[in-house]
């Protein structure tokens, strides 16, 4: 269920290029990703090639996730909950949201790791993130459902 114990510098060096490249791709498309929120037809009418943007976003996010999972194992709920919390801080605009989710996700993971290390060191991180993440997700779902329609 995930742990940061096994990762070392070699892993970091291996995943760094892929993660940086994916982040750069997403950052380059930040304004077009915003437009997708208006719906595909409207995005097209504003001059955005929807299929290309969708393809790049899927490939880039899959690549990043794969890197993280292959080093640290499955630590769920961070990607599910953190971006929505970050959105309440920086607003919906993707140019700010990308960076804020990235930082908030990292901070959240480190916090969880610290808690686990200083209490019951054998507990997989995924257990704690699920314990915290599930109620948070339900809370967000109820309170922001109107906004996601």
């Amino acid at each position: 269920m995930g742990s940061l114990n096994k990762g070392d510098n070699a892993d970091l060096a291996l995943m760094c290029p892929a993660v940086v490249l994916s982040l750069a791709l997403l950052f380059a498309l930040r304004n077009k990703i915003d437009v997708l929120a208006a719906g595909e037809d409207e995005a097209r009418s504003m001059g955005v090639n929807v299929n290309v943007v969708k393809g790049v976003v899927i490939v880039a996010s899959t690549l990043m996730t794969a890197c993280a999972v292959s080093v640290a194992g499955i630590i769920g709920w961070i990607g599910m909950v953190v971006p929505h919390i970050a959105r309440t801080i920086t607003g919906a605009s993707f140019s700010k949201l990308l960076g804020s989710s990235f930082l908030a996700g990292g901070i959240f993971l480190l916090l969880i790791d610290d808690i686990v290390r200083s209490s019951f060191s054998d507990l997989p991180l995924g257990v704690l993130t699920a314990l915290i993440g599930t109620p948070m997700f339900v809370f967000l779902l109820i309170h922001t459902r109107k906004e996601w329609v």
Partner: protein
Amino acid sequence: MLDVSNVRFSYRRGREVLKGVSFSIDRGEILCLLGSNGTGKTTLLRCLLGFERPDGGRILIDGEDVTRMRLERRARYLAYVPQSTSIAFPYTAREVVLMGRVAHLSAGASHTARDRQVVDEAMERLQIAHLAECRYQEMSGGERQMVLVARALAQDARLLVMDEPTANLDYHNQVKILTALKYLAGQGLGILMTSHYPDHAFLACTKAALMKSGALIDVGSPDDIVTSESLTNLYDTPVHVGGTFVGGLVVKTCIPLLDETAYTRAHAGVRAGSKESQELKTSLGRA
């Protein structure tokens, strides 16, 4: 500017939705597309905007074929104003209007000071600058529609394509939208809108087009072609077109009638040159 000739389209083979549609719009013109539900108005707009590829015919804008344009280039000619749609996530009005600038950005670049200036100007022109920091999702239908018009304006296109811009709006907001459209046309934009209110053709439009089962029956000035006969035929419902004078000006209006008798009577009156209609004529002369 926009030249549509003989456009044909079908979603499925053998069932033609557009059966050879031709019309044109110039700078400063507002064309109102009238027709009952399901006659292909929206399909026509979808063809113009490049969402669907017509099976035949040509759509030219300033002499260039719209269907062969790259998306970004087309966005600089044609801007789409949908019915007040919802947008996922809590964007502010300013951010929504800024989306319209996406076709003007070079790859990967941030919005420039010029982009922000265009956005501010668009919102000021439509008198919604005070809404800039409000969340789009929390706005009323009328405000949303104005934001979407501002977005199309920020796109800096030459022709606005609007799908029922006044649907679901109250009188105040209908008038606001129509006034905005007239103002924009006055500044040289071409506007194509669909509507279920023939009244709006009289109020704001320089041209009307009547569409029935996938073909245009008539295109021309609203005063000439929007008549009791043509609307009755268009909607298969008795409709009376009358005039009221307001401060020396005659304002035409359409009244759907619930039964045929009322229609025949109203009609006989107008044709015989009733007292009422003569009064209208003389007052028009005096004005």
